[in-house]
């Protein structure tokens, strides 16, 4: 009893086993540890072995992938950092687990708030990677990172990220979110052109 089912089941296992080697022969050494090989294992007609041997092989993350926010700064011509964040606090307000803390800068002389963050903290133990901060940031200043290898030995020392740790250049942002960055840049240029046109119209 149960003999037919066992044979059939073993047949399927054997088929998987066999396909692994037949695909190896067909694709040659490209099958492993190359982008093409990994892509093949992610496609709808993948056959045989399916596992990706992390960490030797890594599945490329899609653009929308979100993992721990970072703050974007623009590089100025003199090599300085122009932080995009204006410390408006929308990210801190929208954050579901409330893991963002922001101290707004204050002009020492006048006592008025300056649109720059003095301190910015994200507790990555609490962050749930939902991406709402990046979605609702009106200044394109906070974005979701792709770096998911953040394990450390001591959580008390390393897991509250401060401004220094959070800041990353716009070029990095452009590299990991190419489509979104291009769209935003296009919108920004258009806006600036409009402004310039309006200014030109005013002066004439």
């Amino acid at each position: 009893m149960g003999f037919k089912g066992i044979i059939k089941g073993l047949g399927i296992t054997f088929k998987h086993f066999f396909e692994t080697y037949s695909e190896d022969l067909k694709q040659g050494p490209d099958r492993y540890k190359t982008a093409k090989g990994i892509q093949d294992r992610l496609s709808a007609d993948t056959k045989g072995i399916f596992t990706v041997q992390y960490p030797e092989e890594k599945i490329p993350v899609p653009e929308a992938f979100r993992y721990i926010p970072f703050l974007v700064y623009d590089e100025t011509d003199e090599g300085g950092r122009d932080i995009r964040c204006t410390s408006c606090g929308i990210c801190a307000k929208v954050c579901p687990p409330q893991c963002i803390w922001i101290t707004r800068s204050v002009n020492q002389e006048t006592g008025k708030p300056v649109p720059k963050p003095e301190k910015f903290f994200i507790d990555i133990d609490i962050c749930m990677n939902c991406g709402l901060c990046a979605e609702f940031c009106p200044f394109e200043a906070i974005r979701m990172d792709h770096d998911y290898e953040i394990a450390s030995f001591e959580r008390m020392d390393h897991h509250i990220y401060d401004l220094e740790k959070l800041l990353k250049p716009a070029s990095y942002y452009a590299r990991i979110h190419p489509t979104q960055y291009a769209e935003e840049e296009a919108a920004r240029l258009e806006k600036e052109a409009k402004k310039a046109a309006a200014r030109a119209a005013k002066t004439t």
Partner: protein
Amino acid sequence: MSEPILVSTIPDFDVLYPEYVRKDERPGYSGFIIQSSSLLEFAKIVRDEWSYDFLTSVTAVDYFPEGFEVVYHLFRSLGGGILTFKVELPRENPQIDSLFEVFPGSELQEREVYDMYGIVFIGHPDLRRILMWEGFAGWPLRKDWKEAYYEEESKPFSSRWPNGEAERAETTNPFQANLKYPSGFDPEKWEPEGEDALYMGLKKSGQQDGLDTDFMVVNLGPQHPSTHGVFRMAALVDGETVVDLKPVVGYLHRNHEKIGERNTYLQNMPFTDRIDYINSMSNNFGYALAVEKLMGIKPPERADYIRVIMAELSRIQSHFMVTGFLLNDLGAFFTPALYALKERELILDIFEEVSGSRMMCNYFRFGGLARDLPEGVLQKIRDLVFNRLPRKIDEMDELITENEIVTARCKGIGVLSAERAIALSAVGPILRASGVPYDVRRADPYSIYDRFDFDVIVRYHGDIFDRYLVRIEEVRESIRILQQAINQIPEGPIFEGKSQYQVKVPPGESYGRVEGPRGELGFYVVSNGQSNPVRYHIRAPSFINLTGLQEMCRNEKIADVVAILGSIDIVLGEVDR
């Protein structure tokens, strides 16, 4: 023109029974308010005379400082809309008749309401705490109860901005300083008397062949590989036969609903991902529907199609997974489960590309979606649903359905009859395997499900095997829906206007429900017009399906209990919330 379907209209109970029923006339509310003394009578009338035979959800709302309201949602197993009725209770010593006699499916839910609000259900056979432990002080969902790491009534917390200084909750409020016990309670000396109460709830010894026999209690879990998480079954066995069995839940309880009441409406969206973490898309769907109903908005056409595509993909991967793990429970250790997971991976890859995360999708917004489909994804989905998935489901069907071991272990085991399934409020594949063709997508169509051509799968034996068959067939139906949706999906916006992080929700209540892979997933949301919901309740299908576990397991062998539990398909994140 055909005649209008009668099942969909809700009778005017306030006109029919004016002595104890009145209409709920608060703006934004619907349904009826029943006098608490006549609740049982009314419940019998709606069940027997108006065929509202399915009690789907029991919950309560705390209208601080006034009083409590116990809310009941019912529907007809023939189809149609939801009947809501409520009973008002005072804050002091709230008591109400249990509906257990009329609707046995209320058992676990009434226990939950008791546990969370301290509302006593008179006549309930086993009224104990269910999610919290016995040494717990207070009633967590009451508005005047504050949790251990309480900061403020509602988010966003004022300490975060503009003068935010990072601090850890455990340093400001260290462990043990945040614990509360009932007065006179000493945790060191505590002996779990709740255990006795649990075992007392089980049937005691009986006579066999003229001899007095003593039964043995076997605890499966909380750490047991068969329970798919931290779940415990206290079984009373006679030899190898289960005489009685009680599920013990709550090990993963995190008071999701309290968190939900502190959150703003949008902040709840990523939290819904974490109820049933296998199907975040379906959870998003249910919650978005409930809040959209309150706000009175509808998403644009394209967004609706993407929602359906995502929800159906989610159903497919969930059914694949449960089928694979059912074989695990039968003893085919992990090889078939991994073949099923392989197909699931390909679907998760699509979720990742679309939403940014494989499991915690957080993809739906009120009135649309977080973002449009990236380029090339539609083609990937097309490859899967037109080519790979139909092939794979056939392969799986062929391998499992005729397997002698599977049929021997599953046929005729864990039977739940149609009447009992309805009475015990079982939903989803369990209800349909018992011969009740009830599917929310058909019975009370939401979103754009009325446009698609698909069948409601039904089987009639009510055993494990039929539940498995229902799931396999449902995958095929989902593929059918997906094929139609992909061919019809229009171009256009996925959001009207701009997505807001502070949505304006008018006062009122709404119950949004979807047919999740585990059955009817409902969200009951009450708003008072402010930025945080007053009440955010989840009708969790796997939790309520457990009500029937006791009956399914009686007189089965202890080894089959594992398979029966596997066929119910529970996700502990959803059971315990």
